[in-house]
């Protein structure tokens, strides 16, 4: 390797001791030979160990988005409601009245597989820091979870650990965990997905950013002390698993939610003054990425003395300190002179507070330890020079549409219904969300179990609705349609409670991007997501990419998890899925074509998912959803539910179970196969419950808009009955539906 000069240099700075570079060392740092060559060109000399570490984390997939950036740029990120799109710690959306929602979703997949409790816990802690670092008080958490097959030996351990970890952190923070989604699929056996979303509330004139503008300003470290936690965690999260992964275990961090709670309160207290110029949480790649990002965005240099960093362990090297992923830490740039007042606040909350350096006009990141310069790098180059790859991709081949007639006949619709409702895909998630404090903060007006969760904007009548969704089997079969469907389903879930969808965040979980088929899935899903967002005026304001979710060459199904939020002006107008009264007409809005490909019903009958997923008609989605929302807001509807996984009869059953009232359904007499009518997964459909007397009027109203609408039943009793076609007692369904997870996980 090139041995270039060090010591005094042209830019006047001091150069650190070069490291003894070997091919192994470069590979260990996750850099390709080309990338290392590029590094040498940039800095014009051999890097020090600390510098190599800094580059390795800055150029990791996790921090640099090198495989995904090119495609992410094509997503719609703008709209009148958007205050801040992607690029900051979290996205910011206007809620009116001088208030904003700040939200983001992030993955903690690899750590959660290795240590489910701590991995999930620190994932929740990390996403909350992303939100409160911008000045928002977190008001709701959600989580999108994918586990392996229920019968897989490890699944039980992982579910128990992940759920307890999410609960342990969120509950202690006093932030309600109000929603999410959970899938089981054998293709996640070796790569579970733990995606955590946090929504915060801030005043629009009190939003904090990371740009450290100004020279000679104090750089301040607050929060927990730095230890040797997760060193190389960021590069680990970007590397494919193999059977040796177990050896990487000690890189798991332990979460300390108590300290984070103190950090939250201390930061918000300081934010109510005008002391902060810039603030950034220390997430993956800790001190490195926070300092580089803040300096780069502010167009300044940082000169930091690591001796001043609060340390938990002795003898830590500069390399270790710059790469440590110790949790519950923040980096701030303050107005000069405000340090004593700021320190007083952190003292009150028993948190470390240390001025560790200052901003400079050199444009360089200078890291010193024991009087020696350990790193001296140009900030802008470090931030912008990360490689960007347009990796080759191969479009996923289109699958044929499965004809309903090709599926076996089903004698007893209700026994099929019972199997679906009592199986892994559709069973009640109560066992999960009862472990989450979903009511703390006293504003949960839409609890878990419905279409979207809703938290009240404190002290107002406004409600913030949120849902997470993606149907990975659809994405696997047809990435483009699946990408559309994921966005649309959150939009529908939010619409179904009466809220107006505002914007989304996402967590794009995929396999190995160097494989053209995986990259094809990625590109397809993104195109679908982009088109859906454009059609619905539902922009993407933040997100996260998690690649290399793959073990021994077997990747996960493409899983672009979408987290959407929406707003309702008066939470008294919210509707829920619960059918709570007898004598309500059940109305189906939307066209039922009986699409069985990739349906849960197909899997129940054939043991597998096959064919094309249901296509999504974006214009129709929008028209249908807007009409339903208008009806909700006019106060005419008693209950609403969107029709998704499992189809019509499943959606009906969910409404009946939620309200403990049965329904008598009209027999189906149309052209498509009976089973496909009841269990097909056609999109853009909603079920509405209205007082029987109003049904005709509402049907007429919707039909006038060109929406296929019909009354399909009347609520009554404690059974679901199809006239002339049998029935099932709600109690039977409930036992199956509620029993599955507790039995699996006990």
């Amino acid at each position, binding site marked *: 390797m090139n041995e270039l000069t060090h010591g005094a240099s042209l830019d006047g700075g001091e150069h650190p001791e070069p490291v003894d570079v070997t091919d192994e060392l470069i590979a260990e740092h996750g850099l390709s030979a080309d990338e290392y060559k590029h590094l040498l060109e940039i800095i014009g000399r051999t890097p020090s160990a600390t510098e190599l570490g800094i580059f390795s984390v800055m150029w990791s997939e996790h921090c640099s988005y090198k495989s995904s950036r090119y495609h992410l740029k094509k997503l719609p990120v703008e709209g009148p409601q958007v205050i801040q799109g992607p690029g900051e710690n979290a996205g910011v959306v206007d809620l009116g009245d001088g208030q904003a929602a700040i939200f983001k979703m992030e993955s903690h997949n690899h750590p959660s597989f290795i240590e489910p409790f701590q991995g999930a816990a620190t994932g929740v802690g990390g996403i909350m820091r992303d939100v409160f670092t911008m000045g928002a008080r977190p008001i709701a958490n959600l989580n999108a979870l994918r586990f392996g097959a229920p019968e897989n030996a490890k699944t039980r351990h992982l579910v128990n650990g992940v759920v307890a970890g999410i609960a342990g952190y969120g509950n*202690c923070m006093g932030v309600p965990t109000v929603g999410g989604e959970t899938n089981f699929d054998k293709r996640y056996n070796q790569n579970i997905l733990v995606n955590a979303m946090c929504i915060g509330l801030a005043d629009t004139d009190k939003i904090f950013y990371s740009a450290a503008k100004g020279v000679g300003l104090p750089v301040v470290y607050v929060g927990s002390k730095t230890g040797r936690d997760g060193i190389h965690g960021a590069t680990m999260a970007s590397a494919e698993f193999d059977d040796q992964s177990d050896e990487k275990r000690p890189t798991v961090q332990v979460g300390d939610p*108590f300290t984070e*709670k*103190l950090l939250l309160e201390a930061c918000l207290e300081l934010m109510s003054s005008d002391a902060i110029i810039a603030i950034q949480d220390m997430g993956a790649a800790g001190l490195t990425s926070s300092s580089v990002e803040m300096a780069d965005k502010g167009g300044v240099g940082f000169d930091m003395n690591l001796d001043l960093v609060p340390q938990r362990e002795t003898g830590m090297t500069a390399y270790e300190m710059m790469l440590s992923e110790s949790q519950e830490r923040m980096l701030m740039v303050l107005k000069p002179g405000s340090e004593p007042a700021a320190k007083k606040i952190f003292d009150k909350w028993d948190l470390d507070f240390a001025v560790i350096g200052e901003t400079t006009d050199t444009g360089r990141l200078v890291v010193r330890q024991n009087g020696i310069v350990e790193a001296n790098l140009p900030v802008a180059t470090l931030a912008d020079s990360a490689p960007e790859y347009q990796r080759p991709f191969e479009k996923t081949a289109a699958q044929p549409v499965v004809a309903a007639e090709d599926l076996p006949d089903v004698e007893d619709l209700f026994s099929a219904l019972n199997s679906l409702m009592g199986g892994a895909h559709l069973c009640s998630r109560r066992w999960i969300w009862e472990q989450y404090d979903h009511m*703390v*903060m*006293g504003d*949960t007006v839409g609890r878990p179990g419905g279409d979207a969760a809703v938290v009240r904007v404190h002290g107002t009548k406004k409600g913030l609705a949120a849902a997470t969704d993606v149907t990975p089997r659809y994405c696997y079969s047809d990435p483009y349609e699946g990408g559309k469907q994921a966005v649309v389903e959150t939009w529908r879930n939010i619409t179904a409670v009466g809220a107006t969808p505002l914007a989304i965040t996402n967590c794009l979980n995929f396999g190995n991007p160097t494989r053209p088929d995986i990259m094809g899935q990625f590109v397809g899903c993104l195109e679908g997501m982009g088109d859906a967002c454009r059609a619905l005026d539902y922009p993407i304001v933040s997100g996260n990419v998690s690649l290399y979710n793959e073990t021994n060459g077997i990747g996960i199904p493409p899983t672009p998890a979408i987290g959407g939020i929406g707003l309702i002006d008066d939470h008294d107008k919210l509707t829920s899925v619960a059918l709570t009264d007898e004598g309500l007409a059940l109305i189906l809005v939307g066209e039922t074509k009986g699409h069985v490909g990739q349906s849960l019903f197909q899997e129940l009958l054939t043991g597998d998912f096959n064919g094309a997923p249901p296509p999504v008609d974006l214009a129709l989605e929008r028209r249908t959803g807007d009409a339903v929302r208008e009806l909700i807001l006019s106060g005419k509807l008693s209950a609403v539910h969107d029709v998704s996984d499992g189809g019509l009869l499943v959606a009906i059953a969910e409404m009946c179970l939620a309200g403990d009232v049965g329904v008598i359904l009209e027999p189906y007499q149309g052209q498509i196969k009976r089973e496909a009518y009841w269990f097909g997964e056609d999109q853009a459909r909603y079920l509405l419950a209205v007082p029987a007397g109003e049904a005709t009027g509402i049907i007429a109203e919707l039909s006038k808009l060109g929406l296929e609408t019909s009354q399909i039943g009347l609520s009554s009793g404690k059974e679901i009955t199809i006239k002339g076609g049998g029935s099932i007692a709600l109690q039977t369904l409930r036992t199956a539906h509620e029993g599955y997870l507790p039995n699996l996980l006990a």
Partner: protein
Amino acid sequence: MRASVIVFPGSNCDRDIAVALTAALDQKPAMVWHGDTSVPPSDLIVLPGGFSFGDYLRSGAMAAQSPIMKDVVAKAKAGVPVLGICNGFQVLTEAGLLPGALMRNRDIKFLCKDVLLKVERNDSIYTSQYKAGEVIRVPIAHHDGNYFADDETIKSLEDEGLVAFRYVDETGAASAAANPNGSVNNIAGIYSADMKVLGLMPHPERLISPALGGSDGAPMFKSLTEALS
């Protein structure tokens, strides 16, 4: 009526209880920092829910040693009503103001859900707006709510009518199935001997309006207002 809410590091239902008290009293409670040494003159002191000191070591153990607790104990002994909800109940037992201890839930897991409670008596300052024996619905949200005391203590609590609330089913029966956490005799809350100190695991402050799913918690705050104003 003047109320004070003690805020410990890690308290997280302090705002919730302040909202409930403000609604009932038409007056904001004083928020008192754990590091202070005296509670301002108050007609009611509340120890809120949450995870004081992270619930590390034992729930409520470190909070019970906070500087402010000396004065809370003194005031309680002098007859000032003290209400401990959830973590506050744990603090009260750790501070010796109420007997017994709150152990890990029977099923080990944190549990957040609505439960049914029987109001054992309505002649306390906390329960006058309920009917004696009334069954109400109130949420719980805790990891360590499994009430335990030795036989003698339980016997004296029962004999002296100091059980305030019990987990029950719809019919008012304290059945095993209605017991969410394994508490002895389905005990959800207890009074001190003078009935002025109440500790309970459920969160009445969370169910004070139909928008939140119910209002069965509201009468407790109304009772306090009536008794203490």
